[in-house]
C-alpha cells in the first residue's frame, strides 16, 4: 500500500550547492538521502511528494555548510498484514517462491504458505529449482511466470543492519515481506478467471 508520510529532517546543505535555488538544492539532497531506501516501520521511500517548510539556514562555527530543518511528505511503500498485492514470479525453488514488484524484490512465499495439496516439480538437471503445482479437484494448477500472482501479506520484518557481513552472504534486505497464497482468490490470476 502506498502512503503519504510526513517527515521532519535536519539537513546539511554542502557549500557547492549554495548557488542553486534553495528549494531545488534541498529537494536534490533529500532525494539522494531517501529515495530507494527503507525507513524501519515506515517502508520504502518512493518519491518526495511536497515540501511543507524549510527552516533554519544557520551556519555553525567551523562548518562551511548551512543546516536546515525541513518538513516534507514522501510517498512510501509499506505493505500491511492482510493486504492483497499483485506481483510477478521471480524465482521458484524447493523453499518456496520469490516474488517481485519491479521496484521491490524481497517478497518470499515459503512453501508452507502455498495452497495445499501441493507438489514440487524440479527442473531437469537442477533439483533445487522447479515449479510448484496446486492439486485441486483432480486438476493440476501450476505456478508459472506467465500471470500476475496475487498474494496476501503474512508479515513484514525490518531486520537491523548487520555489523559485519561475510563475503558470500546474500545482499542485506532492509525490508522483508512474507506472503501467503493459501486462500481463495490468491495465486496466479488465471486460476480464478
Amino acid at each position, binding site marked *: *500500500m*502506498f*502512503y*503519504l508520510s510526513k517527515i521532519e529532517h535536519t539537513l546539511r546543505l554542502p557549500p557547492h550547492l549554495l548557488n542553486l*535555488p*534553495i*528549494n531545488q538544492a534541498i*529537494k536534490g539532497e533529500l*532525494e539522494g538521502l531517501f*529515495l*530507494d531506501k527503507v525507513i524501519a516501520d515506515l517502508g*520504502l*521511500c*518512493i*518519491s518526495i*511528494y*511536497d*515540501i*511543507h*517548510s*524549510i*527552516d*533554519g*539556514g*544557520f*551556519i555553525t*562555527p567551523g562548518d562551511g555548510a*548551512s543546516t536546515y530543518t525541513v518538513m516534507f511528505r514522501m*510517498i512510501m*511503500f509499506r505493505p*500491511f498484514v*492482510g*493486504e*492483497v498485492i*499483485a506481483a510477478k514470479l521471480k524465482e521458484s525453488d524447493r523453499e518456496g517462491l520469490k516474488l517481485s*514488484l*519491479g*521496484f521491490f524484490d524481497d517478497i518470499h512465499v515459503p512453501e508452507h504458505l502455498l495452497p495445499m495439496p501441493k507438489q514440487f516439480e524440479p527442473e531437469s538437471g537442477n533439483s533445487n529449482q522447479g515449479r510448484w503445482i496446486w492439486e485441486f479437484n483432480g486438476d493440476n494448477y501450476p505456478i508459472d511466470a506467465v500471470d*500476475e500472482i*496475487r498474494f496476501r501479506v503474512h508479515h513484514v520484518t525490518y531486520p537491523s543492519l548487520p555489523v559485519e557481513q561475510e563475503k558470500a552472504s546474500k545482499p542485506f534486505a532492509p525490508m522483508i515481506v512474507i506472503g501467503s497464497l493459501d*486462500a*481463495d*482468490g490468491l495465486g496466479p490470476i488465471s486460476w480464478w478467471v
Partner: protein
Amino acid sequence: MHHNIYLRSSDFLFRFTSIYFCPEFLKAKCLMNCEVALILERKYEQLQQMSDDPVNQVSQVFEKSLQYVQRFSRYKNPDAVRQVREILSRYELAEFELCVLGNLCPETVEEGIAMVPSIKSRGRVHDDEAIEKMLTDLSLIKKFE
C-alpha cells in the same frame, strides 16, 4: 565569527508546493495505485519540462514504481480516479480498505470479501446488498473511461 542566514522560506514554499499541490490528496493518508500513477506521471512531465535530460534525472526506483502502478491501476483518467475515491468514501470504510478495493476492483461480493475480509466482520454496517451496490458503482466508472 558566527554567521546567521535567515531565509524567507515562505517564498520558496509557495513556489514549490504549487507544483505538487493536490487538494484531493490532503485528506488521503493511503494512496491507491492509480493515484500514485497520476502523481508520478505529473512529476515526470515536470522533469521533462525543466531539464534537457530527464532520463538521467529519474532514479531507478521512480521508474520501476511508475511502471508498477501504471500496470496495476484500473483507472487512468484523473476524473475517474477522483470518482473512485469519492464513491468509496460514501461507505464507512477504513482508509486501507478503500485503497485495497480501489486497487483490486473485485467484481463480485465474494471476491470483495475474500480480498478485504474486514468489511464483513461483526459490528460493521455493510451487508451483502450494500457491498454489491458499491462494487456496481465502481464498475460503472470503468465503462466511461
